[in-house]
Structure formats: structure tokens, C-alpha cells
């Protein structure tokens, strides 16, 4: 058995805040564990986020582009760099600092372009997700309709099969009755002839 480990300490190569947030949101009553209740929480947490406009609290929009004349937020520092490397970076920063306004001026349109592209890509992604969900729903409905139709066709097939069976047996019975009638007619003829012959004999 692994020792008890707080959830936050679960080692993760690629931290995924969404998963952690979801798990933090799940409340467990350890005294009376109720699977149905737990699963309702997990299902709710695992459900895809609501689409923008479909809910009262739409997801946060992408970060706004940097304002004109102001530098964008500095990039995050590299993880635990060596001391010499830090000094070198500081020196280079000091050396280049007079040129920063020009660099910003050159870099800003590019930065804005990237942010605008990102925003556009995000919006497209959201739209695609929404469309895919809608298509899935429609597909499910179509599948259900198809299943119903399939069952209906099966029923009709059975019905027509049964009707054919009944009709065929009726036809056979009619043929049989006809041939019986023919036999009876012949028998009647024969009996009439015999009757006549006997009458003649009796009269004689």
C-alpha cells in the first residue's frame, strides 16, 4: 500500500490545474461515503465547460493585448539558473536598456498580431467545440431515430411475414376445400346414378 499522500503532493510532470481544481471541488463525507453522491459531483466536475453565451457565467476571455507604449509582461524567469548566468543576463539587460523603447516599438505590432491571432484561434476552437457537441447531439438523435425506424421496419417485416403465412395457409385451405367439393360432387353424381339404377331395378 502506498502511504497516505495529500492530493496537492501528487507528483505531476505536467501540472494540470484543471484536474486539481476539479478534485478540490469534490467533497467527500468519509463517515458515510455515498457513491451516487460522489459520482454526481464527479460527473458535474467532468462535464465540459458551458459554451460562451449558453450560460450566465461565460468562460474568461483571453487576456487583453498589451497597451500602446507599454511593454508586455516580462517573460517568466528561467527555473533556477546558475549565478554566473544571472549576472550575465543582468549585465546584458543594463547594456540594452537604452534600446528598449525602440525594441518595443518594433516588437509591439508583432506582439499585437500574435495576441489577435491567439484570440481568433481561441474563438474558433470554442466554435468548433460547440459545433462538435451540437453535431454529437444531432447524431445521437439521428441514431435513436434510426434505431426506432429499424425496430419499426422489423415489426412491419414480421407483420408482412405473418400476413403472407396466413394468406398462404388460407389459399391452401381454399384449394383443399375446392378439391373436397369436387370429390363430393363426384360422389353425389355417383350416388344419384346409383339411386336411379336402384329405382329402376326396384320398379322392375
Amino acid at each position: 500500500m502506498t502511504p497516505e499522500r495529500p492530493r496537492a503532493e501528487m507528483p505531476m510532470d505536467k501540472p494540470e490545474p484543471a484536474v486539481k481544481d476539479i478534485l478540490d471541488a469534490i467533497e467527500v463525507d468519509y463517515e458515510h461515503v455515498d457513491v451516487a453522491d460522489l459520482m454526481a459531483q464527479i460527473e458535474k466536475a467532468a462535464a465540459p465547460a458551458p459554451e460562451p453565451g449558453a450560460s450566465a457565467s461565460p468562460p474568461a476571455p483571453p487576456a487583453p493585448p498589451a497597451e500602446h507604449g507599454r511593454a508586455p509582461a516580462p517573460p517568466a524567469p528561467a527555473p533556477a539558473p546558475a549565478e554566473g548566468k544571472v549576472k550575465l543576463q543582468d549585465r546584458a539587460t543594463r547594456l540594452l536598456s537604452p534600446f528598449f523603447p525602440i525594441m518595443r516599438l518594433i516588437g509591439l505590432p508583432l506582439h499585437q498580431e500574435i495576441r489577435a491571432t491567439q484570440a481568433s484561434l481561441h474563438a474558433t476552437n470554442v466554435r468548433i467545440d460547440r459545433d462538435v457537441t451540437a453535431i454529437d447531439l444531432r447524431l445521437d438523435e439521428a441514431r435513436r431515430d434510426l434505431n426506432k425506424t429499424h425496430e419499426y421496419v422489423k415489426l412491419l417485416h414480421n407483420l408482412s411475414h405473418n400476413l403472407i403465412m396466413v394468406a398462404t395457409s388460407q389459399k391452401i385451405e381454399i384449394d383443399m376445400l375446392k378439391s373436397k367439393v369436387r370429390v363430393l360432387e363426384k360422389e353425389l353424381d355417383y350416388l344419384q346414378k346409383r339411386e336411379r339404377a336402384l329405382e329402376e331395378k326396384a320398379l322392375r
Partner: protein
Amino acid sequence: MTLAFVVQRYGLDISGGAELHCRWVAEHMAKYGPVEVLTTCAHDYITWADHYPAGTEVINGVLVRRFPVSKSRDIYAFSRLQARVLQDEHRLEDELAWLDEEGPTSPGLMAYIRDHEADYAHFLFFSYRYYQSYWGVRSVPAKSILVPTAEHDPVIHMRIFKDLFRRPKAFIYNSEEERDMIQALSGNREIPGLVVGVGTELPAACSAERFRRTHGLDGPYVLYLGRIDGNKGCAHLFDYFLQFKRDTGSPVKLVLIGSAVLPIPAHPDIRHLGFLPEQDKFDALAGAELLVMPSFYESLSMVTLEAWALGKAVLANAHCEVLRGQCRRSNGGLYYRTYAEFRDALDLLLATPRLRAELGRNGAAYFRGRYTWDIIERKYLDVLAGAGA
């Protein structure tokens, strides 16, 4: 009078769910009176080729009568017929032809059942979908008790089975879900039936350490037990597990025990140990964080019950109504329908040992309350008494 257990295969080396179920119940019911097993000479469930000699033998104190199989299964013809009866409009004769091909076709067994009806108090037929159950129940309906071991798979919708489910004197179901499904399909509510299931044989002691040492395993692992097969949901399990590893970076491993008929992804955290003896299986369970059960179709998952018997939590596929129902009734496991639910449920279980322990405790209580052998035996006796034994 003697009780007859009728099953498609029987033997100590046969580990199929329904066959093992039948063997265990037969061996336990032998305590209460004479018991015989009527079965075929088959061992392989694909071809049904004769393997054991025809005639009688005694296995664990139970007399077994074996009858030869008249024809091996032609798997291609069977596949064609199955596609036809499941997908196309077809006649009753096609379904009967499917049943013949499904096998194991043993006219000798059927003739024996017909000729010796008077010698037996009851015939317990295991697994509705095989030749011996369909024709056996029709041969001796007044003395037949059907243990359907039915799953929610498409063949159950065939017309021949609707008719079959209306014939036996009584039913022994594996779960409430199975009973509801069969009653909804066939409208046989008037036929008495009891949800019983099956117990399990637990070893005297389990050692997680021994298992870890033998197989060189360290760190936490989740366990899958059973045939590694697409039908058992293993393909989904591999996809979900690998995605889970990518998303969370969890160090957990997936340990697989059972024969593989599906390629297993080459990943350092997926360990396939092949088919292991029972003791190793329970040792593996004892060391696992939890049991994962990805199967879509189960009539009663015996490994799930074994996990609960050892106080282990379970993560099951919610698409299988039986597993979902068992998890909810027992409060012994979580379940998932989608990858997101799998990720969140597994992450929650791995991160909270207390929750795992509580679920395991609930599962163990559920097992003790429903699946110990004295309870199973008493329920069987009740059904037999109700059926007029």
C-alpha cells in the same frame, strides 16, 4: 433425488465465468444431496472440439457425465450467421441455425436429458446462449431452472431467447440488472426468480509483499484481472490510462493479469504478467490501490466481488449496468462513462487513501451480506424448494 447441473464445459482447468460459477455451485450444493454435472467433452470455447473423454468421472466429489460434441464450430460460418441474425431481417430458422453453429452441439447430451428426466429432481442450466440450455430447457421445462448469466449483448434480443426465457420453472439471476433486462425482454415476470450470484474461494492469507517481490513491482498500481480483450473494454482502458498518465503525471502503474488477445501498448508503466495462479491473483489484489473493471458486458463480475472481499475499492465502466448498479448498491466503487470521469475518479481515488479504504470497507460489507457461500447455498435451496424439489 439427484440435482443435475448442465453446462457447456466443465473441468478444473476451465476458468470461464459461467463454467467456474457452475462448478463452484455444484461443489457447494453437493453438501445437501447427490449432484451430477451433465456436460460435453469440449474444452475450447471457440471450436468446442472434443478434448475430454466421453463417459463419467468424479471431480472434487461431483459425478461428471460427458457427451461428445457432434461438430466443431466453423468460426467463419458462425460469423456470417451472427452478422445475419444481428443485422439483417431474418427468419426463426436462421436463429436456430445460429444456435446450432454457436454450439456446443451434443445430441447425446440432449437424448440423455430427455431419457433420464425422471432420474433427476431438477436440471440447472447455466448460460442461456448455448445449445444445451436452449434445447435442454425445451426438453424438460417442468424441471428446468435457468441460470442465464446474461449480459447486455445483442444476441439476447434474438426471438429464440424470448421464447426460451418463458419456459423454465424458475430462474436464478446474477444481479438485479440482469433480472430486469430479461423480464423486460421476455415479459416473464410470472416465472419465479431470485437474484443470487456466486460466492468466491478466498485464500487463507494474501501477501502483497510476496507479489511485489516476485514480479519486481514497486510504487502504486491499479490492477486489471481477466482476459485482455477488446470485448472486456481493455482497449479503452489502455487509451484512458495513457491519457491519464499524460494529463496528471501520476506515477501509478497498470498491472494486467490474464491471457491477452489484444495487443498491449508498450509502456513502462503498463505491466502484463500473463495468466497467474489463484494465490498470485489474490496477492496482486492485496497490493493494488484498486481494481479497475473496464468491461462493457458483465452479468456478474466475479473479480469485482473478489476485490470487495479483500476490501479493495473498484473503478468500473458505467456503461455496464451491472457494474454500475453493484457500485451504487455496495457504495464500494466509483465508475466512469467518459475519459474525463475516468481521470477525475481515478485521480480522486489515488489521492485519497481514506476514500479507497472506506469504499473497500463498504465493498467488503456488501460481499459478506450477499455473497458468502452459506448465503448463496441458502438461496439456491430456497429456489429449489420453491420449484418443488
